[in-house]
């Protein structure tokens, strides 16, 4: 869960390595700012308690092609 201590800079560095993304130094501030903002927004969702039985919304339908 992202919290107030979420470190967007280190997250971006770690994930860039994990995903094989070489982030141009010129782009990095913008990416970090967006990551920090995303974490702040995501917290609204991740802090909300959900019962264990709540399933993921998208449904996979065997036999049905992409539309």
């Amino acid at each position, binding site marked *: 869960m992202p919290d107030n201590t979420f470190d967007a800079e280190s*997250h971006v560095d770690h994930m860039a390595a994990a*995903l094989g993304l070489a982030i141009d130094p010129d782009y990095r501030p913008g*990416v970090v700012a967006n990551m920090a903002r995303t974490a702040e927004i995501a917290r609204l*969702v991740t802090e909300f308690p959900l019962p264990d039985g*709540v399933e993921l919304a998208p449904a996979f339908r065997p036999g049905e092609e992409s539309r």
Partner: protein
Amino acid sequence: MIDHASGALQIASAVKGGTVSAVEVARAALFRIGALDAHLGAFTAVTAERALGEAAAVDARVRAGGDPGPLAGVPFAVKNLFDIKGLPTLAGSRINAGHPPAGADADLIRRLNDAGAVLVGALNMGEYAYDFTGENSHYGPSRNPHDPARMSGGSSGGSGTAVAAGFVPLALGSDTNGSIRVPSSFCGLFGLKPTFGRLSRQGTFPFCFSLDHLGPLGRSAADLASAYDAMQEPQAAAPVSPVLGQGAEGLRIAVAGDYFARGADPAAFEAVAKVAEALGARETVVVPEAARARAAAYVITTAEGGNLHLDRLRTQAADFDPATRDRLLAGAMVPASWYLQAQRFRRWYHDRVMELFSRVDVILAPATPCTAPPIGQRTMVLDGVEMLVRPNIGIFTQPLSLIGLPVVAVPVRRPGGLPIGVQVVAAPGREDLALRVAADLEAKGVCKAPVARGETSWER
């Protein structure tokens, strides 16, 4: 008389009746686009030769006494994320310009063609549909015909511009978080975001598989209904056009309170109040956890978008619009647990909102928090709070598309001011109810979508 301000059904009726030929209508549309679009930036490609060919085929069917279809000779254009045979599907990007041309039309283009409509071109849009403004760093902005210094709204910006300018009576857009409803609001149009999954997405460039919808923008509820009926799956629900005349009488209509009643300019709430009064809607309902729903939509969108473009971000990052690139890069880095929690919240939220629809048929909410801002404006003040323009235009649309509800954006005219829209929201599969309400508001003169008059320089 048929002219650039005529609606789709008026044109179809005149073409079927032989008052005007489809070729004449197509030529007039192409002439107007050629004369004026350089000022407005609606189109990225005009398919003139194809349009004249399709129109000639419609005229031939009329001459032969056959049925030319419910949209006979109606010019239409599509956001450039729809595949058009022979053109690369740009999706607003420079990167896709290097893709091979599409080998076939998208499903929905084919269905409109089958109904007699005539494709005149591809429309500008925000890059990869990740946009609420209608601005595009590669192809220029889609300008608002009511005031070309202002945004058309995005990401179906060219769709809004083209219909409001009278280039076409009908355009197709896509709506992931509000991209049909926002340009409808800013450009003063009717726009339909159907129920998620209701219309085929085959042959369109994706943005976010969980949330992408396609739908029409037009200048009347009846035109939207006709386009929607033509695009539905053959075995889908009953057509909606025949029920439009039933009006809103007897429907349980409520205004969304709480989240949907704060954080916007007075114009947004005045528009909702005007619509509610016309409909006799006095009840207020609270859509539970709407702020979290918006957050969940944001997380799902950015994570799926980032994943979709990951390879391009690895190899062609410099070719993206910087505003899109940085958000997609961050989106690709969203932890799985945030994304999955957002998808589980989506299910929870859906179930709560369905409880609301056991008590009401239709919910009214603002479409945008403001009228169209000037192009290039970065921040705005809403309710006394300064905030970024780009991410906050969709504050009222995102919580509704998260669970795929059908919504008709209806345009409320403001004397001397820019138009602004209201969302007419119904339960899944009940496009008929939302369109009935839209038609009722139009009949009462509360909502109207005339072609923008070129008070400024673009039409001189």
